[in-house]
């Protein structure tokens, strides 16, 4: 699981690559920690994420809530159709704001 | 066997005497006769059946038809023979008519 962070103006962008499951979740959590504590506008770019396990879904939701609890905004960018289906079936989808393109994501963060 | 009929109307009461048998073949005759009698919108239909030896459910359907055409029509069945009573019971129709031994006095 690879994770790259960068800033574009006031927006934090985190690009994730690979799978987030029970093995990789703790590490992802650690790497996200600093970003989550400071981000007011966050894009989680999931385009290269292949698989989210139950642990991965929970990590995502907890991260999402950490930012929104501090009055920040989070958008999930590029979640694959397959993963969206799984998120829908397991009740996770409705908690998030999703976007298909960078432009949409930027819009959603205003 | 054949069916012969004799009918009359007095005031609100139509009377029809049925002699012989009412079955699939003769039921249409009965129906035509009843239909005629109902033109005067009687409140009562008295069937004299002491000489009726048989009535199939085709005959009962004529009575249903009569009740549909003339809502509120009261039907009397006077002096039915055993087979007629039997048919009335078997088809559940017994309580749908007034079975009497004597001619009812009606207006």
């Amino acid at each position, binding site marked *: 699981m690879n994770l790259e962070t960068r800033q574009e103006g006031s927006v934090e962008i985190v690009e994730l690559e690979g799978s987030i499951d029970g093995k990789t979740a703790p590490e992802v959590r650690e790497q996200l920690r600093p970003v989550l504590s400071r981000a007011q506008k966050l894009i989680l770019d999931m385009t290269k994420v292949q698989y989210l396990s*139950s642990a991965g879904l929970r990590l995502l939701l907890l991260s999402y809530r950490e930012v929104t609890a501090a009055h920040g905004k989070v958008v999930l960018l590029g979640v694959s159709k397959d993963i969206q289906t799984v998120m829908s*079936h*397991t009740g996770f989808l409705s908690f998030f704001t999703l976007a298909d393109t960078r432009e949409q994501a930027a819009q959603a963060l205003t | 066997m054949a069916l012969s009929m004799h009918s009359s109307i007095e005031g609100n009461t139509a009377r029809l005497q049925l002699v012989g048998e009412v079955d699939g073949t003769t039921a249409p005759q009965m129906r035509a006769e009843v239909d005629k009698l109902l033109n005067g919108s009687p409140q009562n239909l008295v069937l004299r059946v002491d000489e009726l030896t048989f009535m199939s459910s085709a005959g009962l*359907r004529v009575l249903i038809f009569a009740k*549909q055409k003339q809502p509120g029509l009261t039907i009397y069945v006077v002096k039915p023979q055993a087979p007629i009573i039997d048919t009335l*019971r078997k088809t559940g129709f017994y309580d*749908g008519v007034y079975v009497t031994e004597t001619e009812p006095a009606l207006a």
Partner: protein
Amino acid sequence: MEGRIDYYPTHECRGFRFRKGHVLPFGATVVGSGVNFSIYSSAAEACTLVLFRKHEPEPMVEIEFPRSFHIGGVYSMIVFDLDYEDIEYGYRFSGPWDPGRGLRFDYSKIVSDPYGRVIGGRDLWRAEPDWNDLYQHRARLAFDDFDWEADHPLETPIQDLVVYEMHVRGFTAHESSSVSAPGTYAALREKIPYLKELGVNCIELLPIYEFDEWDNNRRHPETGELLLNYWGYSTIAFFAPKAGYAATGQFGMQVDELKTTIKELHRNGIELILDVVFNHTAEGDHRGPVISFRGIDNAAYYMLTPEGYYYNFSGCGNTLNCNHPVARNMVIDCLRYWAAEYHIDGFRFDLASILGRDQNGAPLSNPPLLESLAFDPVLSKCKLIAEAWDAGGLYQVGSFPAYGRWAEWNGKYRDAVRRFIKGDEGLTGEIATRVQGSPDLYWHRGPTASTNFITCHDGFTLRDLVSYNWKHNEANAENNNDGANDNNSWNCGWEGETADPAVNELRLRQMKNATTILMLSQGVPMILMGDEIGRTQKGNNNAYCHDTELSWMDWRLVETNSGLLRFFQKVIRFRRAHPALRRRRFFEHSDVHGAGILDISFHGLQPYSPDYSSWSRCLAFMLSGHGAPELDADIYVAMNMYWDALPFRLPKRGHGGAWTVEINTSMPSPDDIFDPGQGPAVSGDEVIAGPRSIIVLTANTHS
């Protein structure tokens, strides 16, 4: 690990650190950075925890419970540093092998955790398992955190329920269902609009506890294909939802998926009742496999004969020893778990009479398990419904130990209505009792103790009830010997499918007759999945083994039989709109409110002259709107099961508006049933009910 002073490892085995664990809760629970494993056996001598990496054939490590870890008969330990998404676990128990005394310990077998909340091994429905796997049904850990938001069990008053008995997979497996994941909990969500339009507000699901669909060794006599265990009345794990019924089962997410479905059902006002099978397990008799209970605490979990064989009151090889404290506690823990963690609204107990037998099979007058369930605080708002018989000859409809709480599947209702509509003589007296909610059986309770049904998964579908005189179960490969023989069905003049319009019209009318009586009876009505669209199993009345079109819901029938569906929708709506049909108490047969008519009165072709003679085939009754739980309309129902039309003279009412026709099953759609107040007015004081038809009228109580 933060906070507690006792979460540090004290032992090590092959690189795995562990320590003494917590007795409670039983099962496997994530605690801090470890997993707590706890399991009990009253008769074992020692126990070993066996851990696998998911799907791997050989165990990753086996850790024996040190003697110091035992408390009573409970073995518990915490193991650290496990990837709890990736592990599977089981146990080996050592103890005596002495079947005569009921002891069947076999250390060579790995047994599954009775409290396992997720079971692996059948992740994908019908995927052929690895038959060489020495541990087939593997316990796993569950993520039990779930954001229910505001959801809670609906606590719909039982008298307001209209129950729909459904097989999760069968409901959407057919491609005509047009759902994204056929045959799953997720697909059920997509069909909620259909269910809402139908008007049902409660789903009763056939077993969803983990079972083995491969548990069948018969082959289809024509295709040679292996038959399955499709219905699922053969439990492997009572705490785990079947993975094969989940679209996300292959990812191990069935717990979240089922909870999401339940949340959505509740959001739409629909309750969920589970059909639970505590009468036997999938382990069969002494020749059956060792999956779990047999290798853990055989004599505690199963009713055994003095020689150590298995009593068979279930007809399925073994009988759960429900009133033994060990089994009893497991059952109570299980139901509490489902009620609390899954927000389940009620439970229907298969072959429930077994739950009232003692350890030797003798019926108890005060069975501890049934009493405990009736008064359990967690379950206090759950519906408890008993199939009040078993396969051992105990028939307790009307006498099931109810403690004022249990409802029953009223088999007598089913038999009386089936016989009445097929035209049997002399049923009118019994029908009069059944439409009142069966006070003869439940005089001490009320009509809500009676679950009224005419069809269920056992037996013919409604369409087949009016299309077949005899069962046709040849495809079950038992020479048509299985399935009930006393179906009280009538084929309307031809056996099976026919193009004869007169026969088909009569069949359609009969289906409407059956449903009308059901919806106009006091008690809780239950219909079978697909009856509303004329689902057929081609005369098979025991389709437990067919995972095919034979048992699936064919959604094309929604169009083909749209008239029938429309009738069901409207007659259900009629029931839900009239509180007079949904009483909690029996009728008093008096005019308490000075309405001028009794709360209920019975009639024949003449008012107040019901015909209860032995040849009678028709009956009418009238309900007073004033006598209803809330002010309602007056309702009159005439049921004519003769083969010719009959005139029903209407009873006089002291005051009130004119009668209008709501339902007339002798008329073709759309004149068979009307929206409220849209039907024709009745002129005069007589209605004519067509042959084998029912007429329902309503009138305002005030002019």
